[in-house]
């Protein structure tokens, strides 16, 4: 029997190859302005928040769900913190804790809507996308004329989070911690195994005694936590927040996960894949900027890339399934003989 490469390994190699090809492309087109150490540390910095939120989003997608609300959730967390900063004397750490609490509650709301009320994931989180954004506007800080202001968050103890040690930004360190912890939880805990089981087949998971609604809900709560942390680092970097913070952000972690080989059908993928996808997305953004293509092109190319990858996966999986079937049949025959 010929030894064959595992499907997931193959898919990992494909996403790595895509990333390398992209880097090579921009390297050729952009030259040293793209290939410098400084630029790579910038790319990692930009990939970091996406990857942090991507941990949670990956969990949700593995359960065959989706979360479209992460962008507005991020704004809601940031605006809550901005209010605390502006109107209270609470210390910075408690401001951050309250921000994280808001993220957890927002995630729980998504979880309840999806897992308890059985609203289809993309509709439920599309609705909360609107709700969280509206709440953000509701608590947005306005000037005397009622015009919404960009709210500064300039206390040094906080903005230090936007800084770096040498070429490595703190947010990248946090990202590393999230990715490692996320991968460990996914691969080495019962909860992680349950996520795969729920995504692969809810009925089988239930038959095996897994509490499916609870597992799905926890996944959404984890998204809330990741978003809150991402929100802290984003605002620490910007040193301010606005009611529009994170609009369109929800696209990035989903695209990162899909590029990294997390199947939208559920039951497959991992955090490392999403990390590769996040770096891919950040490289894409960065390279386009270096080539003086504005955000408009990013919107177009991101949209096309995500659909192209999903189409590729659909064709690729069909093919691999066929090969696996033939392979399985051969293995059977080997056994029977």
């Amino acid at each position, binding site marked *: 029997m010929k030894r064959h490469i595992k499907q997931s390994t193959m898919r990992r190699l494909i996403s790595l190859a895509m990333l390398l090809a992209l880097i090579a492309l921009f390297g050729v087109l952009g030259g040293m302005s793209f290939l410098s150490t400084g630029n790579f540390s910038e790319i990692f910095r930009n990939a970091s928040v996406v990857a942090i939120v991507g941990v949670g989003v990956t969990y949700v997608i593995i359960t065959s769900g989706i979360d479209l609300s992460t962008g507005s959730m991020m704004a809601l967390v940031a605006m809550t913190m901005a209010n605390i900063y502006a109107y209270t004397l609470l210390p910075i750490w408690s401001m951050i804790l309250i921000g994280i609490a808001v993220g957890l509650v927002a995630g729980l709301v998504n979880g309840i809507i999806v897992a308890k009320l059985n609203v289809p994931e993309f509709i439920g989180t599309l609705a909360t996308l609107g709700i969280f954004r509206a709440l953000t506007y509701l608590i947005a800080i306005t000037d005397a004329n009622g015009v919404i202001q960009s709210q500064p968050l300039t206390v040094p103890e906080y903005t230090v989070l936007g800084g770096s040690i040498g070429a490595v930004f703190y947010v990248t360190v946090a990202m590393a911690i999230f990715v490692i912890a996320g991968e460990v939880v996914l691969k080495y805990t019962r909860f992680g195994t349950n996520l795969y089981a729920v995504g692969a087949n809810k009925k089988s998971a239930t038959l095996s005694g897994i509490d499916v609604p609870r597992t799905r809900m926890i996944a959404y709560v984890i998204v809330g936590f990741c978003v809150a942390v991402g929100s802290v680092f984003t605002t620490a970097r910007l040193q301010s927040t606005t009611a529009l913070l994170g609009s369109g952000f929800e696209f990035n972690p989903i695209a990162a996960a899909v590029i990294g080989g997390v199947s939208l059908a559920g039951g497959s993928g991992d955090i490392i894949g999403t990390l590769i996808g996040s770096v891919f997305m950040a490289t894409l953004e960065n390279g386009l900027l270096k080539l003086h293509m504005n955000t408009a092109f990013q919107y177009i190319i991101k949209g096309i890339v995500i659909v192209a990858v999903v189409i590729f996966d659909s064709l690729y999986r069909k093919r691999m399934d066929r090969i*696996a079937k033939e*392979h399985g049949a051969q293995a059977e025959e080997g056994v029977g003989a």
Partner: protein
Amino acid sequence: MSKELLLEANHIYKSFSGIPVLHDVHFDVRRGEVHALMGENGAGKSTLIKIITGIYTKDAGQISWEGKPVEINSYQDCLNLGISCIYQELSVIPPLTVAQNVYLRKEPLRAGLIDYNKMNSMTQQLIDLYDFPLKPTTLVEDLGMGQRQLVEILKGLSNDSKLLIMDEPTSSLSGKEAESLFGIICKLRDQGVSIIYISHRLEEVYRLSDRLTILRDGKNAAVLEKDEIIPKMVIETMIGKEMEEVDDSSKELRSDEGPVCLEVKSLTDSANRFRNISFQVRHGEILGIGGLIGAGRTEIVRAIYGVDKAASGEVLLDDERLDPNPALSISKGIGFVPEDRRKQGFIPLLSTVKNVALTNYDIIKRTGMAIDENDELELSKKAIEAIDIRPADPQKEVGTMSGGNQQKVVLGKWLVRGLKLLIVDEPTAGIDVGAKAEIYSILDQLASDGVAVIVVSSDLQELLRVSHRIIVMRKGGIVREFKDETVTQAKILAAMQGVEEGEKR
């Protein structure tokens, strides 16, 4: 083999809404034996198993486990005792490894994290013990159906199960896969594990079982020791009639003289579910197709109608070659009543009117593009009249109707248009006796009007009742054709099972 009893069920009674399904049934399993359970559809096999596994509660009777009386009130109770059920619809999780599946929710932990080394070695021990052709680290999605089933069995064994219940375990397996499963079953028996083996396939039962319990009409028909299992006798016991006896379970077949309506020439499936199938159906003839589940009956009629594509072969309707797809088949005068009514037969949220109209828009009057809703309503009324749906409310959502009425709607939509050929797959599955009789008389009427009818059925009585001619399929090929002769249920069953008449074992 010891004769010590592991499980004993005595005087089991169970009835549903007053109708007895099990009547004073006795069933026992010895330690380390393969005990087969057979019976026709509706004989009470699955009800008995559901009582043993705690899914149903018995009305009366007693169950003992290892000599002590026990109450099994839930599936968890049954797992705790050491009984595992291998579901027909497997509950393994494809993206996880064999070991992860076997120890799902009981993973060995070290410092809160899953100890994969320990889990894999525990799984390996289990695999070695029973000598399964598996590796702990293989992903289940890379395994064939047969090996997946072994994972399911392993999952049961990891609970220290002393009794495994296998319900039609070979129904989705290839020949080779089944062979290897039989080997495993023998090994398990040698290790002292008891197995309840439920199957329609006599040859498997002969081969594997140490004892055989046959149920008929919710009662014990026989309990046979290994050397008492004689194919012909088993068939007769299941049906309750002598093989040569002529009575209501036999029929004089006839041959119709009408012109050939459908001709199938060496039709072969791409997934090898049927091979080289050739037969004809004449106008005015009802052709019955029998065979065990998985023999390829449903697959062949789906290919004729064009739901699935055949790999090679020809389908000719009135000498015209078809490259069938459903829309074309309908326009050429073929009707199709699919096997799974709920999933394939009708649109639950739509009314009878719209379900009937769905296949008949070509004959409903129109002004320009607008459907004439009166004509549409008239058509559905015609269908309701033709098949006697009660209450005759054409606006009622089909999803809210009884199974019998639903099937009548599915059938009725074909009766309002000029048909050449009607294919019905399991036309009376899960519907009541009255509706059954009505459906049979509709089929008779169609045939006498010159329509060719193909009936696929697992119900032998039904095959005998409606067919003018019967072909029997086995393992993807036609093995026997009955025409111009007296045929009995036993003869059909023998052909389905591949048992030659009069053979002794």
